[in-house]
């Protein structure tokens, strides 16, 4: 492992984004801000500890090769599925949904870890698949994505549930599935949406989903307030005199609506900076995926980046009134341990692939001649370390 191979821009973007998150938390916790009285310095400290722990863990996870994850992919997938099923059967209701496992001072959200496990499992299956040309060969990856979708949907956690299918599509696409089959899948999904909307959702979920489609006046209270806060940030952020009631009260501002704080405090400059940082993140991750010759690594990077990207679009969109309220957090920025931890685990995995872009052997890559092994000299025990096939 050479540190020079580490993708520094990617790491810097992620750390800066988390910095924005801490900054907005501090802004909410400041004594002059009366709009979110329940946020105090205790939250800032807690988040800082989470941040430090996550970064430390991410660095440690750069040491072993990412190929280990392949060995445990199905195991992790199974464990997460069992956790989700157990949650549905015995889990407590937290804010109307069975999504969290309370563990003393913190609570874990298995759906977040399922995202990682699902990507690893899909990548492992796809990288070993003989072909992806028949519907039969697509059945297993479809099932791998459908199970978590269903388990998360019934919690109910609509936002996370609807992420799995697009990620699956992207991974199939990169994995080499035929375009016609993918187009057919997209059409089936588009046709299924109205049925799920009519029969699978509760009225309030429907309202949330379509609320933003109406005119600006019909946005929900939260979104109206959020848009107003974003607008009041103007170009360079607003500066209130001491003693003013700090404007907008937005429930869950430190988690789902954290982007509106950045936009209000730092204006267009700050809110653009966040988007640019995410842009750097996607570009660098894309470069890693493109450069690596290991199909497993490539699929992992694509899957994780897409999960992250979709969350960014939906979360920022709901903050500025162009996407429905779904309860998705903004990666790296939002308050919350589970969210932050999975973000940095994803980051570690992506960076790890970037560190080890050396060719590995998958039969299919060899067949198609993408991999050249001319001049490659395996280090001692290299084949052994690649793990069991």
């Amino acid at each position, binding site marked *: 492992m050479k540190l020079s191979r580490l993708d520094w821009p990617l790491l810097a973007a992620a750390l800066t984004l988390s910095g924005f998150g801490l900054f907005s938390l501090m802004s909410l916790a400041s*004594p002059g801000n009366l709009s979110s009285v329940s946020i105090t310095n205790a939250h800032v400290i807690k988040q800082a500890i989470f941040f430090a722990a996550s970064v430390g863990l991410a660095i440690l996870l750069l040491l072993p090769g990412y190929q280990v994850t392949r060995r445990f992919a199905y195991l992790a997938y199974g464990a997460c599925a069992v956790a989700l099923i157990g949650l549905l059967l015995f889990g407590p209701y937290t804010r109307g949904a069975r999504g969290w496992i309370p563990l003393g001072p913190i609570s874990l959200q298995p759906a977040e870890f399922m995202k990682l496990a699902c990507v690893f499992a899909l990548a492992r299956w796809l990288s070993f698949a003989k072909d992806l040309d028949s519907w039969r060969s697509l059945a297993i990856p479809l099932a791998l994505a459908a199970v978590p979708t269903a388990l998360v949907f019934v919690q109910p956690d609509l936002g996370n549930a609807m992420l799995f299918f697009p990620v699956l599509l992207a991974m199939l*696409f990169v994995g080499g599935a035929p375009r016609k089959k993918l187009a057919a899948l997209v059409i089936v999904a588009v046709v299924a949406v109205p049925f799920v909307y009519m029969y699978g959702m509760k009225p309030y979920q429907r309202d949330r989903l379509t609320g933003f489609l109406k005119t600006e006046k019909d946005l929900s209270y939260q979104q109206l307030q959020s848009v107003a806060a974003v*607008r009041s940030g103007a170009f360079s952020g607003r500066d209130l005199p001491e003693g003013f009631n700090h404007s907008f009260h937005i429930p869950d501002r430190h988690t789902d609506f954290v982007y509106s704080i950045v936009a209000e405090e730092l204006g267009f400059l700050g809110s653009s900076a966040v988007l640019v940082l995410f842009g750097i993140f996607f570009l660098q991750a894309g470069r890693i995926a493109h450069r690596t010759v290991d199909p497993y690594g*490539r699929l992992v990077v694509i899957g994780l980046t897409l999960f992250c990207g979709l969350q960014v679009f939906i979360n920022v969109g709901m903050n500025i009134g162009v996407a429905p309220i779904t309860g998705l957090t903004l990666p790296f920025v939002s308050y919350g341990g589970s969210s932050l931890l999975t973000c940095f685990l994803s980051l570690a995995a992506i960076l790890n692939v970037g560190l080890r872009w050396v060719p590995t052997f998958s039969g299919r890559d060899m067949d198609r001649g993408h991999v050249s092994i001319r001049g490659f000299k395996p280090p001692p025990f290299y084949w052994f370390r690649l793990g069991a096939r």
Partner: protein
Amino acid sequence: MERSRVLVVASLLLLPLGGLEARILWLQVLRPGGAAGDLMNRSLDLAPALRGRILDRQGKVLAFDDWSFDLHVVVDEFEKRPAAREDLLALTGRPAAELDAALEEIYKRVEKLMGLRPERERPKIYARERKTPYPLFKGISKESAYAIETRGEKFPGLVVREGLRRIYPYREIGAHVVGYLGRASGAKEPQRDRAGNPTGPSRFDKLLAEGYFSEGFDEMVGEEEVKLLAGRGLFDGIMLPLDGVERTYDDKLRGHPGLLILERDPATGKKTWAPIVAPRQGEDVTLSIDIELQKDIASILGDARGEDGLTKVALAMVADPATGAILAMQSNASYDPNAFIPPTRTADLERYRTDAATAALRNRFVQGSKHGVLGSIFKIATSAAALEEGRVKPRDTFVCNGRYRPDLPGTNCWIWNKHGGMHGDVNLADALEQSCNCYFYSLGDRMPLGELSTWAGKLGFGAKTGIDLPFEFPGGLPSPATHARWRNGDSYSLFIGQHELTVTPVQVLKMICAVANGGNAVTPHVGPGEFPATSLGLRPATLATIREGLKAVVHGDRGTARQTELHAVDAAGKTGSATFNVRDHKSHAWFAGYAPADQAKFAIVVLVEDGGSGGHTAAPVAARIAARAMSSEPK
């Protein structure tokens, strides 16, 4: 595996970012929030919703909501200008003590809100709540409201908000039908058991949990925010239904308050509102009541006197016997519902609560008098039972010689007790006409008590009638099953409607309606809705005999109500003198009847408490009411 496809996915990720960037460019650079908007203090507030009106059958308004002005205060700003206090007192003319108490109340609320949250959050909550408008005075005058609104700099931190005030234009008339409202803050006491230990949440907390005050708020602002609004006391001014139609038809009548964001510029007091949840107005409820008839009955009852010449508590009900729709129910022991609406008239309320003689708040129509005795009118039920069970034939006669069982002192005929006389040979119709006790004692020897209980129950005694007014009492139909020590004399007493039979006037109305309409049990009611009548299965011959007797009460030579003007309207009915104090010979005077005798259009029940003889006190009142009711009947 096609590596070029990675590039496609990566570029697909960058495209939406561009879209979002365009949107924030639009929001923050091209259409930024106005500078003035930034300096506003914002708070959530309620938009009051009109409660539905209560109308009588002609559409006259018995209750409506009128707009009024409420005063809210932002303590932080108000206390910055010390003179504001004196100015406010001078303007509104309220005593300083009231202002102090109101401010004290606000601080208590803030402390309570702070107590609900962890220690570290409290300083911020305190600072925020001091900058939030809190209710201060309700119902300030129009002039004060204008002065405060137009001179914001003189009255910093004072916010005039629209409020609602319930008004009952007919005051005491029909109060027991319409009912009254009370402030939600009055329902904050937790429920307690007999020993005074709290057993459950208060009615206010229950309603709050059910979303009574905040329907539609949860989806918009969340549960926490609703609790905050409750903590600030914004729901405390909402009126809760306490009695009458206001209570039974509350689901229709009540409006659902809306929610708005109130934006204030603390420097100038300038306000703007941004509605979040629109208020929904309540629906009107039209009653079967004829308020003009009710008013006239009130004036007739106003000088109701007992045989001793003293003014007595009296009440009367008029209904359509075919449907059970009540046209009027008025008592001269009534109250003014306006007294309950803030600013409450405490002296009046105190009088209503403490004056045991009138007990104006007691709804005697559905709860009965203190002594719910009925007396001879129950003989209608006895007659029906005996005829239906075949224990007696209409023309069977018994001899009344004044004393039925000399060994049982309680079994004398009233004519013996009063005049030392006797009725002689009487058949059933005669017995009803003259209210002969001995005849019914004889029936008591001929039929088992169970048959009487069955028929009395069918006619509606001992059970709630189901009238659409709250807190109805079922009354009591005694039997050996309910009374451990049941003596022979008790059965005799029950056959003439004495012993421990207790009734409500509305039960009597239900029975007399059944006689008048040909044997259908109706549900007496005042409001809209379906109240179907069910047939009791009385034989026509039974009804004919009873009606013959009731007609003779008014028209016969020896009828107990022959000396009244009831015959002028061709009425039929039964008098009752229900003894509730044997030693002092005190009795309630009853009359229950209908007019005209053959094609009944009105059923009437009159009760004069402690009025003495039904024939002498209740029947003349009934005659005047019947004459009034018949005169308004459209021909």
